[in-house]
């Protein structure tokens, strides 16, 4: 069991692969642990990459401070871990809470970054997200930890996935209850609540950045990701079809090949995204990885594709949408 000592407290981490290979760090969402990235660890270590996973302070097997967690410690822990493992630069991926760490790391430690992959995340909380956050917090402390996890389920997964996994969900919820301590997660949520928005700092991020957002992510919505796209100059916004907040768990195979493509492209020095918007293919076997988004990507109603009703025709006939081909499957 690997433990990293940070300010006299223990951080649990797992490292797979060779330090000389491109390293991808995956940072957990709020109630996750390193085990949630098992698929990713296996996928990338078999493709010439190394993978670094760690439980944030307050999570899983890492220390759970009783009094306070300073959000800043998350970035410092990662920087310290990379130093310990003698990794100069890495690709930093993370989801939700972990996505915020990704962005802060990109701002504070640009010299350690090859590329950033913030997923289902935000740089500021609008009134809606704040309200949801407060509800989640109150539900957790007033009712219990399993209630928090249950509240997350419909935000995290599509109806299809929930239906297909109905028998496994109670076990997954119990595992989350077993592997987490309420006060640790509470401290993490409070560290985020004290946190000030940092949209104005995003322009400092110069590294290639692949922003990923689920089509039906009602927790961290399109607007939150649109802010990232507009502010980070070297970025691409990639929309993940038919999935919600925790798409890394629902479609890991599709996410892996997209991250693999991103890493290969940056390694070859071919990353040329300039704040473009793409839609990821939803079939893992498709040759095409993604294609350009034609409509207004900030709307759920495909407003650009609807003809304004005329006097003669009030039914709203849709225009034919011709989509140019985008990137195809990476050559492994």
């Amino acid at each position, binding site marked *: *069991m690997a*433990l990293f000592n940070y300010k006299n407290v*223990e951080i649990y981490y797992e490292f797979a692969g060779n330090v000389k290979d491109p390293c991808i760090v995956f940072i957990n969402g709020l109630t996750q642990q390193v085990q949630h990235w098992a698929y990713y660890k296996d996928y990338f270590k078999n493709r010439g990459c190394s993978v670094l996973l760690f439980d944030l302070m307050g999570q899983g*097997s890492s*220390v*759970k401070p*009783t*009094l*306070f967690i300073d959000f800043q410690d998350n970035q410092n822990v990662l920087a310290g871990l990379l130093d310990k493992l003698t990794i100069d630069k890495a690709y930093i991926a993370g989801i939700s809470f972990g996505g915020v760490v990704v962005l802060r790391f990109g701002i504070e430690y640009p010299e350690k970054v090859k590329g950033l992959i913030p997923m289902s995340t935000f740089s500021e909380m609008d009134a809606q997200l704040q309200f949801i956050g407060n509800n989640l917090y109150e539900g957790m*402390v*007033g*009712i*219990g*930890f*399993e209630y928090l996890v249950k509240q997350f389920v419909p935000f995290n997964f599509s109806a299809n996935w929930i239906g297909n996994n109905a028998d496994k969900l109670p*076990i997954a919820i*119990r*595992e989350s*209850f*077993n*592997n987490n*301590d*309420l*006060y640790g997660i*509470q401290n993490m949520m409070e560290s985020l609540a004290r946190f000030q928005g940092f949209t104005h700092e995003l322009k400092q991020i110069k590294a290639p950045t692949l922003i990923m957002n689920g089509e039906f992510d009602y927790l961290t919505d399109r607007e939150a990701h649109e802010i990232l796209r507009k502010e980070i100059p070297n970025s691409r916004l990639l929309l993940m079809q038919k999935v919600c907040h925790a798409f890394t768990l629902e479609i890991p195979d599709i996410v892996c090949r997209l991250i693999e493509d991103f890493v290969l492209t940056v390694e070859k020095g071919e990353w040329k995204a300039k704040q473009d918007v793409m839609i990821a293919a939803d079939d893992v076997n498709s040759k095409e990885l993604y294609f350009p988004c034609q409509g207004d990507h900030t709307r759920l109603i495909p407003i650009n594709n609807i003809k304004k009703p005329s006097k003669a025709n009030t039914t709203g006939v849709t225009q034919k949408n011709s989509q140019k081909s985008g990137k195809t499957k990476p050559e492994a």
Partner: protein
Amino acid sequence: MSQKLIEIKNKAKEYFSKNELNADHETAITLFISGVKSANVLILSKIEIQPVDWHAYKYMHAQYFKDLQLFSLLNRSTNWSYNPYIYYQLSSQTFNLWGTSNLNTYILGAFDLDAKFFRYLSLSHAFKTEIRFIPLFPSDLSLDTPFLSALYDVEVQNQREIQTQISMLKNIEVPSLTVEQKEEIVRNERQVVADSYVDFLKFLITI
């Protein structure tokens, strides 16, 4: 979490993946939790007869009665063992816990906003967070038995109750303590409880 606590928890998980809970286990767990809960009830009972800030009183009063309720519920749900060694061993462990955590020092005298009160809050926080049994059982184990459902209720209720400890630990001003000293007290009390829990788990998986 200390290395030895992680290791013993992993051993206990492995043990309970192969062994079903029996009356000896249930008796040991109930006696261990009862030792802790009864101590907390005893300490909290004094707030009923001393002047306390209303806000703090409201929450400590609730915790006092909730602990009493859960303590009796768990006792009622337990399949009690006929093995006298379990009772002897748990008496010894509870006695040791009272000694290492200085529980007797919190019983006498009124609460005041001092280091001793902060230490009590840290200790009771550790009691309610370090000692958890449900995570030691397989995730697919049905909790639909009187004992397991009562044990689950104890843990869920502990998570709600610690809001009292969390709120006071974070917010009360203790003029004699710096933030570093507060952190130190919290760490020490957690260690005391963790050590006791490790000793108990070592015994539990040999039953």
